[in-house]
């Protein structure tokens, strides 16, 4: 880590988006789990997540019922704080929030 001379003055963050480097999901006490079978790929969780912690992956998925999707939504657990907004907003109740502690 830099000494005081090496840090930017005014506590400025000179690289936008650099928070992604920090693993900030460690204080989460509950974890959202997306049920890929029920998920309809509407993208509402992705849009509502206040921390950009829903990942929209270009990865296909076919349900057991035979429905195919081109994208998959997953939770970025390195940054998800467990607020539960995704589960609250999900129109098909495809996201379950479970305690981290077993």
């Amino acid at each position: 880590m830099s000494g005081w001379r090496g840090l930017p003055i005014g506590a400025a963050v000179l690289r936008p988006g650099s928070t992604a480097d920090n693993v900030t999901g460690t204080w989460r006490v509950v974890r959202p789990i997306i049920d890929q079978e029920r998920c309809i790929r509407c993208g509402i969780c992705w849009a509502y997540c206040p921390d950009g912690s829903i990942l929209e992956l270009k990865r296909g998925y076919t349900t057991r019922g035979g429905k195919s999707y081109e994208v998959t939504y997953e939770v970025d657990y390195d940054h998800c704080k467990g607020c539960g907004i995704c589960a609250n907003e999900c129109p098909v109740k495809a996201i379950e929030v479970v305690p981290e502690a077993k």
Partner: protein
Amino acid sequence: MLAELQRGARERVVSRRAGLTTNYAVAHAVKAVDVDVVAVYPITPQTTIVEKIAEFIHGGELRAELIHVESEHSALSAAVGAAAAGARTFTATSSQGLEYMHEVLHIASGLRLPIVMAVPTRALSAPISIHNDYSDIMNARDTGWAILIASTAQEAYDTVIQAYRIAEHPDVQLPVMMAYDGYLMSHTLEPVELYHEEHVRGFVPRRDRRNVLDVRSPITLGAFATPDNYYEFKYQQEVALRNVEGVLREVEADFAARFGASYGPVEAYRLEDADYALVTYGGAATGNARMAVDMARERGIRAGLLRVRLYRPFPSAPIVAALAGVKAFAVIDRAIAYGSPAPGPLYKDVATALYMEGLTVPGISVVHGIGQRAMYVEDFYGVIRMLAEGAGTGKVLFLGLRE
């Protein structure tokens, strides 16, 4: 020789001599340095500064954005935003307004924003008072701002001009407060020599600052700092603030060459051979003390005066050097540090500075002019007499108080 050079410099740069209140002198300086943004909220006795600036903007003499806000907290917050975006920014307040700004004072210094603020000082409520003392500025002394205290309208005009050079200096990048006596200076007329504005603008050129908000090269300001880094950022601030004294001397040397005037971090009057010293700040206390020193000298008491102009960072070295040779000194404070080891805020700083150099010069902590209680030359002469008689040192004196 130097005096002649300085006279020559003044003839070239002075555009006119005017009778101005210190508030108007400040407004003229703000116009001369060509500020970009002025965030304002009215409060007595500050209001006439920003009224005059509004006139300048309305009349097309100053091209600046005047932001009307709903409080002093917002005035300084708007100044923070403007300065963060790289604008040359000014605001002004007094008394309760400065109190209401308090948390933003720390934010402005913590974000290293070179805002300049004028503070015609005023007593604090309760009971409500619109009159002058220095209680407001003393509550802001440890907020990381550089603080200069002017004693004349001319000095206030010159200091605002110097303040932008100091605030924007790469070794500083900190906000600067310029204080003076509310009412006693803010609303009284003095002769002021105004400069041709091209000379002022040549003295305070625009320079690129580090870490400015710019959409072409985005950064984040005001982010969270964990225990891993917070301390280092605050230490940077302490170093930058301590750089101010050296930068002030450098800026004043250039100012003296161009405008033929300089003041220094402290000003001494008849102090070279003095046995007894008064230490003051601001206009009225200094003026009274100067006359009291003359009175004492006429009566054979070798008295002198030290006026503190740079209050933060505290210029310990010149103050200790000035007081090391006297038999006793008294600090005239225009505020009460309630419940402190001594009631005078400046006295405490002077005593600490002496102690840190291993010196124990006898001193008196004098409080006077609270809520603009009238101060008389005889009061200050009486303090010099006490010093000369060896009375009262190590003690506290509330001058002008009715028993």
